[in-house]
């Protein structure tokens, strides 16, 4: 049971956290010295796993009568003044068939609590404003995109360097060979230059001058560290990413890290807190945040229907869409071009299938994000993308086992085409996942037959979802060479 109470860093009290945050912003404002770039305290920042506030009861200790009093007191407070349930608002954009969130507070909340959506101008975390400010010289620090760009340029430079070194080595060898040839015109042979059949293979190959990328990187790292040490206190935000090569995730999502702040009572000694940005736009009247948070349809529906933490307005932004109407809207937009409004809800709709999978993994505690960059449907993160790489990549395949789907030939053919995947496709996806060190999960969704009376389907969404079944298969390449023991 201790595991339960420990599982999520519970908010000791929301008020305390808020004050800590405001304090941190104050401190950030006061001490604007450019600090070294380091990771923000993600554990504190993303301590809420869902955009819902929880109010745990004080522990009830049987032999302590005071604890009973405190429990009763907490009940009483909730009764008198029920805590405000935060509902964020967004609107549906039918042109892109996606959900847009424009309110800065809602954007921060949805990203920080559960990693929902992506910035329309950013890679994932909405950080456009930070980058723009940075670009205009208004802010120090580095954003994740900049870190990545810098890493890429570094890598490219190293590769160029390596190519240059290799070219140099070849030239030297050519020169040496030419010299040897001249010499051999006078003498007879030069056996030492030629690699003998046995000599080469003794493990110690004479190609030791090969330029090692890693070695060069280490050397460069050392150099830059030294330079940093020399210019301590000066602005040196571009320290290369010196995390261990195979250690934790090195991708950074921090928007602002120029100011350091020590959180009292935190286990991490160097735990800089974040500025609540987005609201920073108010300080800069000339810079508007052009970015919005873009939610996928599955995420939006989960937030509305599953959590009740979001309300979605229609395109004209005057009516709030109810979950059933939202569901039919998304189902219509799951095909392109969207059919007319008259189309009925179908159980084999691709939105339904993908939402079932999304909801399933979200309800287990995974952070589910789109896996389109890896050629899959979803990526499963443990706690969130800032903490670790995704371990599982999910591919969704519908399954039509119910006799309804094989009643007519036409229906049979349609279902067969929907669930058919070729071996080439599977191997392709599998090899890509192996390359990026993820495990491939094929998630089969058993699609129920449509219900006869149409009134039922869109009214009771819970009953509709409960008719689906998911089953995960983990697929991995089996290499007989390695399992031999």
């Amino acid at each position, binding site marked *: 049971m201790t595991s*339960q109470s*420990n*599982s*999520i860093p*519970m908010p000791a009290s929301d008020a305390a956290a808020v004050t800590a945050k405001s304090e941190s912003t104050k401190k950030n404002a006061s001490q604007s010295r450019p600090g070294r770039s380091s*990771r923000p305290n993600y554990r504190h920042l993303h301590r*809420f796993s869902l955009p*819902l506030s*929880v*109010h*745990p009861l004080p522990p009830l200790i049987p032999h302590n009568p005071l604890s009973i009093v405190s429990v009763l007191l907490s009940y009483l407070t909730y009764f008198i003044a029920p805590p405000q349930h935060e509902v964020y608002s967004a609107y549906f954009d039918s042109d892109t068939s996606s959900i847009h969130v424009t309110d800065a507070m809602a954007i921060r909340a949805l990203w920080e609590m559960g990693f929902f959506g992506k910035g329309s101008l950013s890679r994932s975390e909405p950080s456009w404003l930070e980058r723009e400010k940075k670009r205009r010289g208004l802010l120090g620090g580095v954003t994740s995109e900049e870190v990545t760009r810098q890493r890429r340029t570094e890598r490219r430079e190293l590769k160029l360097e390596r190519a240059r070194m290799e070219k140099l080595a*070849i030239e030297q060898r*050519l020169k040496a060979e030419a010299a040897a040839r001249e010499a051999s015109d006078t003498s007879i042979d030069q056996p030492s230059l*030629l*690699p*003998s*059949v046995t000599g*080469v*293979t003794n493990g110690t190959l004479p190609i030791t001058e090969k330029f090692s990328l890693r070695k060069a990187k280490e050397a460069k790292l050392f150099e830059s560290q030294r330079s940093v040490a020399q210019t301590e206190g000066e602005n040196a935000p571009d320290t290369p990413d010196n995390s261990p090569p195979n*250690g*934790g995730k090195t991708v950074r999502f921090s928007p602002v890290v120029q100011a350091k702040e020590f959180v009292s009572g935190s*286990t*991490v000694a160097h*735990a800089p807190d974040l500025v609540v940005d987005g609201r920073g736009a108010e300080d800069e009247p000339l810079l508007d945040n052009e970015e919005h948070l873009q939610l996928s349809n599955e995420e939006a529906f989960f937030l509305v*229907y*599953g*959590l*009740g*933490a979001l309300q979605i307005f229609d395109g004209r932004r005057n009516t709030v869409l109810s*979950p059933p109407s939202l569901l039919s809207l998304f189902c219509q937009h799951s095909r392109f071009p969207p059919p007319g409004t008259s189309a009925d809800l179908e159980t084999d709709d691709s939105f339904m299938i993908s939402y*079932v999978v999304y909801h399933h993994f979200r*309800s*287990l*505690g*995974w952070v589910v994000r789109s896996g389109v960059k890896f050629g899959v449907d979803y990526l499963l993160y443990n706690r969130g993308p800032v903490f670790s790489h995704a371990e599982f990549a999910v591919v969704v*395949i519908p399954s039509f*086992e119910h006799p309804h789907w094989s009643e007519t030939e036409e229906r049979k053919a349609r279902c067969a085409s929907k669930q*058919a995947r070729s*071996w080439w*496709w599977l*191997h392709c996806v599998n090899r890509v996942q192996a390359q990026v060190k993820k*495990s491939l*999960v094929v998630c*089969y969704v*058993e699609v129920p037959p449509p219900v006869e009376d149409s009134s039922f389907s869109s*009214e*009771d*969404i*819970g009953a509709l979802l409960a008719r*689906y079944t*998911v*089953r*995960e*298969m983990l697929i991995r*390449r*089996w290499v*007989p060479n390695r*399992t*031999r*023991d």
Partner: protein
Amino acid sequence: MADTDEAAIHLPSHDFATHIDTDLSDETQDFRMLSNLSFLTDTSQATLPKRGEKDFEPNPTLYQADILDASRQAMHNALAHPRLHHPKNQIIGIYAPDGPAPPRSVATPKKLDTITEDDPLSTKNTADTEETPSQTTTGPVTGVHPDSCVYVPNPKGQYFKNMGRADRWNRVWLLPEEALYLLERGSLDIRWPLSETGCEDDGETDDPGIPMSLQAAYACFIGRGGLTVDRFSVYSGLRRLGYTLIRAPGWYDGVEEETEDRELTKCQGPGLAGIYGRFMKWLHSSRTTAVGPVAGLGIHRSYNDIYRKLSIIPFHDPMAPPSQPSQTKLPFRVVFYVYKPSTPFRKTAPPPPDFRVAVVNARTQTTVPTLAQLGTLLESTPLDPPKGEKMERMLYMRLRHGYRSVVLAIVDQGVVSYLRVADAAFGKEKLYNRVAPIGNKKGAHPRPKPKGR
């Protein structure tokens, strides 16, 4: 899939390097290592040679050309090395086109007697063989697989430790794939039977007859007793790597499979946790799930409560007994039991296999299996839930291991690729129940903290 490795394309020496199937983790080999192999020089030092570095581009240096030459030379040396078959180790098998039969000297007079007197013995034998009783007793020679078609009258050598079946006349009968495999690797010499060659009048002489060619062996054995080229390529490929393979009951089309795990699964119901979960689900009535929010409108006490309320999607529970025993259909059927080289193996009493392999032809079965096909295939394998201290600790490992697993061998025109399919039940692993690791950096804690405590 069937294409040459991408790395090999970049290699300058595409004269033979690319055409040779190099299974050493899909890389093109540097053949200079061949000249270092111990069997060529002496048998005293048995260390594997290291592979050299690869050059990706041709350059005009003599040095590279010399390496290439050396590699080629090593290859030629290895190929030109005389492979000797010592007459002392020569194994001679005789093809029996009509299946297992007693030797001619005893066959005709007392064929009936042998069957009757061996009957109790045969039933006892079948108890520990992998075949169903009906299969074994149909053959006229007891204890021998009826599909066997080659017998070795004078068996010796290490091959018969995990291959073939001996009859009561001390002849070892080989299945077609076993005979073909041994013939291919040059360990066996198969002779045509005297009846086929027409020189029968010799009677029982020492001269066993005319040797069978490899082509003739392929013609005779492939297609015999359910042996296809796909199955044979899987068999020989894994054999060459040192695995031991036996035919699984699913090899034959019409055979009922043994369901070893039926009783095991029956006694394990949904368990207390499952009942509790069902009760909790019932408790949170469907009022909120109709139009949402599923998490409820009131005050939330903890995230775990929210997650529990959110779990409304049913998932497959691999521990639950299968609803209706369904029959697996070819090709999604276990046809081979595979044993690691390290697994102690006895021919008469094969242990539970390390891997179960189904062979799929990618050209006839062009699509990935559907849920039904894969589900029945997995149901035919025994339940193997993750256990052990390490599995307890590692969530990812537990998920990757799964509750049941099967290996699919996808054969695409001779190229075999293996996929391990495991029945992972994500729904049984509640991630939100886990302890969040302490500290900001995960790299500092390679091991997640044990649950609870």
